[in-house]
């Protein structure tokens, strides 16, 4: 069983919801990424999404764009992101790591070379923002061959016909984008999100994570009433941007802990 699947099975048994933080590999400094990943797990993260920096992150808002630029300026790359995962795996054999990024660095490495290297490095899932369903079949077959989960986005504008189509290729969990727009700040419509997540889960038979625009424990808890996982990205990056050098781990742990308590409150209330 894949690490992602066993993680969700374990959480469902304990009636808990998954906390999935996103951080950009190499931000704020490359040597900090592995310690940050460990700190996130210690503070209650269940799955880690690691952003692979790209020069043209079209689906991201200004916060994640800035973190990508800063990471690239320090020499971060897809290859180095795999090395980071490998380093993380030395001390953590359980927590799933999902790489989230754009197609071109994978194209440059070669899809098959990447799939093999990622599996060897201990990656569990791959979310490639611009491999739309229409273009993804060959790539997801390569991921399947090496036991990696292909994670896909679903949007408020995605038509139900696509959900079924997605079922053929999607593995692990589905990432439901809670807003129209890019990553970052936004007002969320909880009732709409709840209805969508219910409908998607019924069709896809996969856990559904919700992300984009979730900024605090209260919102995370409200979303977790309906979703299997809550994904928080820009808020972590902002915390890292604001943090004085040396305090990053403490700040990130505190934020992850707060979100964790918010999610666990949801289960307790039931």
């Amino acid at each position, binding site marked *: 069983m894949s690490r992602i699947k066993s993680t969700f099975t374990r959480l469902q048994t304990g009636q808990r919801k998954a906390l999935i933080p996103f951080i950009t590999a190499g931000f704020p400094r490359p040597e900090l990424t592995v310690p940050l990943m460990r700190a996130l797990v210690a503070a209650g993260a269940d799955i880690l999404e690691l952003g692979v920096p*790209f020069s043209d992150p079209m689906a991201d808002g200004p916060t994640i764009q800035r973190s990508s630029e800063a990471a690239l300026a320090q020499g971060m790359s897809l290859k180095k992101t795999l090395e980071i995962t490998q380093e993380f795996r030395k001390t953590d054999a359980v927590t799933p790591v999902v790489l989230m990024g754009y197609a071109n660095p994978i194209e440059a490495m070669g899809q098959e070379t990447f799939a093999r290297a990622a599996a060897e490095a201990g990656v569990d899932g791959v979310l490639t923002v611009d491999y739309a369903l229409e273009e993804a079949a060959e790539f997801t077959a390569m991921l399947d061959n090496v036991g990696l989960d292909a994670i896909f986005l679903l949007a408020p504008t995605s038509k139900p016909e696509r959900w079924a189509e997605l079922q053929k290729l999607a593995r692990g969990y589905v990432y439901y984008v809670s807003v129209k727009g890019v990553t970052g700040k936004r007002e969320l419509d909880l009732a709409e999100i709840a209805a969508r997540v219910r409908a998607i889960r019924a069709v896809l038979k996969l856990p559904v994570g919700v992300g984009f625009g979730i900024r605090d424990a209260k919102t995370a808890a409200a979303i977790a009433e309906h979703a299997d996982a809550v994904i928080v990205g820009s808020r972590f990056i902002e915390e890292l941007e604001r943090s004085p050098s040396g305090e990053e781990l403490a700040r990130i742990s505190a934020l992850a802990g707060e979100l964790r308590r918010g999610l666990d409150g949801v289960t307790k209330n039931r």
Partner: protein
Amino acid sequence: MQPYDLPDERGHFGIYGGIFVAETLISALEELKDAYLAAWRDPAFVAEFEHELKHYVGRPSPIYHARRLSEKLGGAKILLKREDLNHTGSHKVNNCIGQALLAKRMGKPRVIAETGAGQHGVAAATVAARYGFECVVYMGSEDIKRQAANVYRMKLLGATVVPVESGSKTLKDAMNEAMRDWVTNVSDTFYIIGTVAGPHPYPMLVRDFQTIIGKECVMQMTETFGRQPDAIIACVGGGSNALGIFHPYIPFEDTLLIGVEAAGEGIETGRHAAPLTANAKAGVLHGNRTYLLQDENGQIIETHSISAGLDYPGVGPEHAWLKDSGRAEYVAVTDSEALAAFHAFCRYEGIIPALESSHALAHAMKIALTMGRDKLLLVCLSGRGDKDMHTVAEQSGIKF
């Protein structure tokens, strides 16, 4: 080559093109594709498009024999397809009229556009004023500095120009930002892409709207010269003027098709914008697979050209396919060669060409010398150079 029926249903030209976007944009692209296919089959839509091109843009644009310069060079006759005479000063307006009519048909009150040199931004702002849309143009802050006059033109026309500070602060970053706007405001916004790039259906519909250039040439060449040209030359950034003139000529196998990219300071220096000529690797950017200037890690690299309109790391996917198929060939011309051609056309023909088009003119001057006087070289003069006064003056050490 027989006329081909590409792209396929999902936007592919061979291995190029396609739909490489986040899921958040898929439904908007499907809505656009359906609206476009229905419109292009609707005689009323096509009639309105043609009416606007005739009465608002001033088409057909003439083909002009650059006699003095041709005779001075002593080789082939250089003929110019005068897209510089269009309203707004370039071929960009053809596509903007088409997409604006589509936006109107789809009931979208707001249009957005990206721009490099500002020609497409001006054309988009113009049609927005003409049809009463709100208009926002994204432009790299570097380009805003280089093209101050065009920025002011867009503002005069009622558009909001948003400076883009991310990445290299040029055309590619403006396109990223426009995509982000579109995904956020997709229900009331139409994204007018300026070139034959982007996700399907853009490369197809921009091409179709621009083929008016080549269709007119086919008729005009027969009427005026009694035959078709031996070669057609056009500059290629994203490649919309080139495809507009090439596409109707695909079945005319005796007509050579030559795309001219920007070699900047020279292909060997690495400071250029010529992915096809430099044999760049194929990759994925801005919604399609194509040849891309990138580093070994797949990051898009900064490009260089004296002409902001050619300063783009990719190229339309149909050009990538035409290169591989051999039906078109691609060469590159340096900044200094383009400037020399710019000055030659000013002095010998009384025509101030855009720096983009000057790349095509430079290559025409090069090969005209190697061809007999009976040969016909048709060059797409895609835009006029008024916008480039500042850049050219700076090159000559002159300050206004």
